[in-house]
C-alpha cells in the first residue's frame, strides 16, 4: 500500500495544516465566486465542483491514517488571551466531514442545474460555499470555542440562502429561522463561556474533557445548568420538539438549500453538536451521572412521534418531508442518550444514513416541483409513469426512511432497536416501532399513489411538463405514434424526461441509500466507522 504510506508522510510534514486547508478551500471558493458575473456559468461551476471534488478526495485520503492508524492531525492558533482555535481530525470529525463534502458535491451539481437561468447565482453559490466552510469547520473543531464560531457562522450564512428568492414569504421564513437559530446560538454561547470559565478551553476528548468531568463531580448543579444551556441551544438546530418551528417554515427556500438544511448542514450541525457535548465534552458517564440524559431521551422520543404524526397530516410534499426530518433527526439523539455502545453507533450511523436518504427525497421533491410543478401529495398520481427514474429514487428514499431492508435506514434502525433492548430503557423499542408504522403510513400511500394511480391527463400539466423537459416531449411522442393503442399513446404523451444535471445526483444518492445498507459490514463503511467511534467513546 503506497498511498497510505505516502499520505502518512505528508501528514507528518504538513499534518497540522490539513484541517486548515480543508476549511480554507471552501472559503477560497466563496471568495472566488462572489465577484463573478452572473453570466460566467461555466467558470463558476468549474470552481465550485472542482474544489468540492478536491475536498472529497482529501477526506477520502485522510480516512486510512486517521481511522485505522490513529493519526490526529491538528492545527491551532491563538484566538483570545488563553484560548486557542483548534482544528483536529479525529474519526468522528472525519465521519461528519465525509458526509458533508460528499453530499455537498452532489448538491452543488444539482444546484447548478436547478438554478440555471435564474438570478443572483453568484450570491447563491458564494454563500453555499461559506455554508460548507462552516460545516467542515464544525466537523474539524477541536474544542468548544472553535465549534461555537463555526456554529454561529453556519447560522449567518444560511440566512441569505433561505431568503434567496427574495419574496416576502421567504424573507419572513428566513427571519423566523434567524430568530430561532440566533437565540439557540446565544444559549450555546453563554454555556460555552460559563464552561470555559471553569474548565478552561474545553478540548474535545473521547470520554469527556478533563476539567468538565471534574466540574460535573464537584458542582453537579452548575454542570447540569450548563449542559441544559448547551444542549438546549443545539436542540434548536436539531429541531427537537418544541424548538422545531423554523424547519417547516424554511421550506420556501430553493430545493438544494432545503436538501442541505435537512441532510447535512443545519439540523445535522445541531445533532453533531449534541454528540460532541455528550460524548466528548461531558463524557457519557459523567452526563449519565448528572441525570440529564434520560430527560433528553424522552424529549427525543416525543419528537420522533410528534414529527411523524404531524407529517402524516401534511398535504404539501415538502412540508411532509420537513416534519419527517424533525422526527428522523431525533433518532440520532435517541441513540446517543441510550448510553449503550450499539445504540450510540446506531445513532451515529443514522447521522450519515438519514442524510443520504433525506437528500434523495428532497432532490426528488425538487425535481417534481421543477419539472411538473407538483407540490401537493394529491398531485402525485401516476408520477411513476411520468417520471419513472425520479419516482424510483423517491421510492428508495422512502423505503429507507421506513427502515425496510436492505436500505441504510434498516441498518441504523435495527441497531438502535438492539441498543434499546440492551440499555436501561427497553421501552424505546416501542417508540421505534410506532414511529416506523407512522413512517410507513405517511410514505407508503405516496409511493402507492405514484405507481398505481393513473396520471391525471390534464392539458395544463402536460404543457408545463413539455416546457421543463426541453422538448423531450417530441421524441416521446414519436415513440408513442408507433402504438395504435390509445392508452399507450397517453402514457407516452405524459412521460417527461428530467434534466440530467438534476437526475444524476438524485440517482447517485438513491444508489447510495441501498449501497450503504448492503456494505454495512465491510470495514470503513459508515456503520463500521460509527461502531469504531462508539467503542472509543465507551473506552
Amino acid at each position, binding site marked *: 500500500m503506497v498511498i497510505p504510506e505516502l499520505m502518512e508522510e505528508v501528514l507528518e510534514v504538513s499534518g497540522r495544516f490539513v484541517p486548515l486547508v480543508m476549511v480554507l478551500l471552501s472559503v477560497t471558493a466563496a471568495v472566488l465566486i*462572489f465577484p463573478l458575473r452572473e453570466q460566467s456559468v461555466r467558470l463558476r461551476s468549474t470552481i465550485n465542483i472542482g474544489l468540492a471534488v478536491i475536498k472529497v478526495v482529501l477526506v477520502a485520503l485522510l480516512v486510512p491514517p486517521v481511522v485505522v492508524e490513529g493519526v490526529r492531525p491538528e492545527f491551532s*492558533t*491563538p*484566538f*483570545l*488571551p488563553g*484560548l486557542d482555535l483548534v482544528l483536529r481530525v479525529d474519526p468522528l470529525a472525519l465521519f461528519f466531514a465525509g458526509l458533508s463534502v460528499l453530499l455537498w458535491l452532489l448538491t452543488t451539481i444539482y444546484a447548478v442545474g436547478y438554478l440555471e437561468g435564474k438570478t*443572483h447565482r*453568484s*450570491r447563491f453559490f458564494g454563500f453555499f460555499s461559506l455554508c460548507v466552510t462552516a460545516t467542515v469547520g464544525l466537523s474539524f473543531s477541536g474544542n468548544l470555542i472553535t465549534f*461555537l*464560531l463555526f456554529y*454561529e*457562522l453556519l*447560522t*449567518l450564512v444560511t440566512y*441569505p440562502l433561505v*431568503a434567496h428568492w*427574495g*419574496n*416576502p414569504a421567504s*424573507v419572513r421564513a*428566513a*427571519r423566523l429561522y*434567524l*430568530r430561532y437559530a*440566533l*437565540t439557540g*446560538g*446565544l444559549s450555546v*454561547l*453563554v454555556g460555552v*463561556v*460559563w464552561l*470555559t*470559565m*471553569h*474548565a*478552561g478551553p474545553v478540548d474535545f476528548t473521547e470520554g469527556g474533557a478533563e*476539567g468538565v468531568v*471534574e*466540574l460535573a463531580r*464537584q*458542582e453537579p448543579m*452548575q454542570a447540569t445548568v450548563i449542559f441544559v444551556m448547551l444542549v438546549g441551544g443545539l436542540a434548536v438546530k436539531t429541531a427537537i420538539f418544541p424548538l422545531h418551528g423554523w424547519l417547516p417554515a424554511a421550506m420556501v427556500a430553493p430545493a438544494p438549500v432545503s436538501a442541505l438544511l435537512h441532510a447535512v448542514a443545519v439540523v445535522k450541525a445541531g445533532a453533531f453538536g449534541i454528540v460532541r457535548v455528550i460524548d466528548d465534552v461531558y463524557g457519557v458517564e459523567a452526563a449519565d451521572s448528572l441525570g440529564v440524559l434520560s430527560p433528553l431521551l424522552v424529549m427525543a422520543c416525543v419528537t420522533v412521534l410528534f414529527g411523524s404524526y404531524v407529517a402524516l397530516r401534511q398535504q404539501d410534499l415538502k412540508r411532509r418531508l420537513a416534519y419527517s426530518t424533525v422526527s428522523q433527526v431525533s433518532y440520532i439523539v435517541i441513540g446517543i442518550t441510550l448510553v449503550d455502545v450499539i445504540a450510540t453507533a446506531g445513532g451515529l450511523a443514522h447521522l450519515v444514513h438519514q442524510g443520504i436518504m433525506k437528500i434523495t427525497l428532497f432532490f426528488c421533491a425538487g425535481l417534481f416541483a421543477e419539472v411538473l410543478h407538483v407540490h401537493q401529495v394529491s398531485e402525485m398520481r401516476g408520477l411513476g409513469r411520468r417520471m419513472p427514474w425520479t419516482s424510483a429514487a423517491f421510492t428508495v428514499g422512502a423505503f429507507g426512511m421506513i427502515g425496510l431492508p436492505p436500505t441504510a435506514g434498516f441498518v441504523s434502525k435495527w441497531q438502535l432497536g438492539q441498543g434499546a433492548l440492551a440499555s436501561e430503557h427497553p421501552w424505546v423499542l416501542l417508540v421505534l416501532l410506532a414511529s416506523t408504522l407512522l413512517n410507513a403510513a405517511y410514505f407508503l400511500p405516496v409511493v402507492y399513489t405514484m405507481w398505481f394511480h393513473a396520471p391525471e391527463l390534464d392539458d395544463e400539466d402536460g404543457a408545463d411538463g413539455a416546457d421543463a423537459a426541453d422538448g423531450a416531449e417530441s421524441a416521446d411522442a414519436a415513440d408513442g405514434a408507433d402504438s395504435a393503442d390509445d392508452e399507450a399513446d397517453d402514457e407516452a404523451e405524459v412521460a417527461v424526461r428530467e434534466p440530467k444535471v438534476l437526475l444524476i445526483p438524485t440517482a447517485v444518492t438513491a444508489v447510495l441509500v441501498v449501497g450503504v445498507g448492503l456494505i454495512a459490514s465491510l470495514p470503513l463503511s459508515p456503520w463500521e466507522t460509527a461502531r469504531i467511534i462508539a467503542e472509543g467513546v465507551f473506552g
Partner: protein
Amino acid sequence: MSLTQSALGALVLLPLLVAAVTAVLPHTPRRTLGVGTALVLPVLLAPVLWSTAVDGDVVDLALGGYEPPLGIRLRADGLSAAFLTLSVVVGTAITAYAAVLPHSTGRRIVSPPTMQPEGPAGPGGGAQPEPAEQAAPADRPGVWRPGHPSFWPLWLACWSGLNAVFLSGDLFNTYVGLELVGMTAVALVALGGRSSWQAALRYLFVAVLGSLLLLIGIGLLVSITGTLDVLQAGAVLADAPEETRPAAVLALCLITVGMCLKVALVPFHTWLIPAHAGAPSAVSPLLSALVIKAPVFVLLRVWLWVVPAGEDLAVLTVVLSVMGAAAVVGGSVLALRQTHLKPLIAYSTVAQVGYWFLFAAMVGGSSSGSPEGLPGVDITEDDVVSSALVGTVAMALGHGLAKAAMFLAAGFLKDLYGTDEMDRLRGVGQHHPGLVMAMGLSAVGLAGLPISLSFSGKWMLTTSAVAAGHYWAVVVIVIGTILSAAYLVRAIAPLLVESEDEGTAVEVPEWQLEHASVLTQLPPLVLGLLTIVAGFGGALLGDLLTVGAPW
C-alpha cells in the same frame, strides 16, 4: 530622536499642518492633499505599531526635548496604539470614500447660475459654510449643491485632534486634542446643510459643556498632584491617597460626567441622533466610528492610569454600569422602532456605547457571588479588570470598523436614492451587491456575532463579568445581542426583498447609477471585511494592551 519617535510626532502634526494648508486652497488640491495625508499616515503608524505590538515597548517623545512635568510628552502604549490603529485605518478608508465621491462631503450654498456661472467649485478660504442669511433675502435665493470643500480642512484637523488625544501623555494635551475634535466635529455636522444646523448647534452645547467639565477636572487634578503628566499624576495619587483622595474622586466624577456627555451615554444621548443621522454621508461614519472613541479613551486613561480604584467609587461605578445597561437595552429598542436607516444606525451607536460602560462594573470590583474556589477558576482582581479592558477595547474597535462601514453604506444609499426610509429602499440592494455585503459583514460585527472583533470583546467582557460575579452583565449582553440582531435584520432585509409591484420602486436617474462606480463600494466593503478579519486578532489585542498597562 529615533524614527519611531518622529513618526509619533508626525501622526499628530502632519494632519494639522495639511489642514492649515488646505484651508487656503481650492477644492481639487484639497482633495489631493487629503488623499496624500491618508496615504502617509498608515506609513507613519507602522513603526509605532511595530514597537508597541512586536517589541512590546512604550514609545515616548518629549516635544522639544523638555521632560515632564515642564514639557509636553507624547506617549504610545498598547492602549494608544490600539485606538491609533483604528483612527488611521478608518480615517484612511473614509478619506478614500470622500475623495472618490465628493458629493458625500456635505451640501454647500452657491449663488444661482445666472449671477455667477458654474465656475468656483470651492469658495476660496472660508472654513465655514456661507451663512444662508446672506443668500436668502436676495431676489434669487441661493442654490444648494452637493459637495462641500470645507470638509477637507475640518476633517484633517479632526484627525489630528483624534491622534493627539490617543497619543497624549499629559492631561492638558488630552483636553486640547478633545476640544479640537469636538469643534471640528460640530462644524462637520453643519456641512449637511440647513437641516443639520440645529443638530450641530445642540452638539456644540454638549461638546462645550463636556470639555468644560473635563477642564475643571483636570484643573483639580493638577492642583493636588502638581503635574499634568498622566503617569506622574497617577503615581502621586497612588502614593498619597489620604490627602488627595476627595479631590481626586471629585475630579474623576467631573471628568466622567463630561465624557459621558460627549460619548452620548443614556440619558445624555438625545443630541447624538440628529447629529449622526443628519450629517453628510462621509461625516456620519467619522462621528460614530472615531469621534466618540476619543472620550472613551480619555475615560479609560483616567480611570485606570490616573485615579486609583477604591471602595469610595462604588456608587459611581454602579451608576455608570446601570446607565450602560440602560443604553444597551434602551438604544436597541429605540433602534428597532426607527423607520429610517441612518437614525436606526445612530441608535445602534447609542446601544453600543452602553457596552463600553459595563466595564465600570468590573472596575468597581467583584460582587459577593464570586465563583473563586470552583474548579478551574484562578482569576485575580487584576485579571478581571484587564480582561474587561481587553473586552471593552475590542468592542470599541470592532464597533469603529463596523459602524464606519454601515454608515458609509447607508449614506451612499441615501445620497443615491434621496431617502433613507427603509420601506422605500425596498429591493435596492440588488443593484449594489457589494454594498449589501458590506452591510451584512458589519452587521455581524455590530451584533457581536462570531467571527468579529466585537464577538471577541463580548467574550472577554462576559468572562470578566462572570469572574467578578456580575451575572446581570451577562444577561444585558445576551439581550443586547438579540435586540441588535433584530434591528440589523430589520435594516438590511428590506434591501433584499424584491418590490412587490414595480410602481413603488424608488426611481433613480441612469447617470447616478453609473456614477455609483465599483470604487465607491470598496471602502465600505474593505471596512466590512476588516470587521470580520479583525475577529482573529483578539489574542494579539490582548497582548498589545499589556504594553504599558498599569498592572
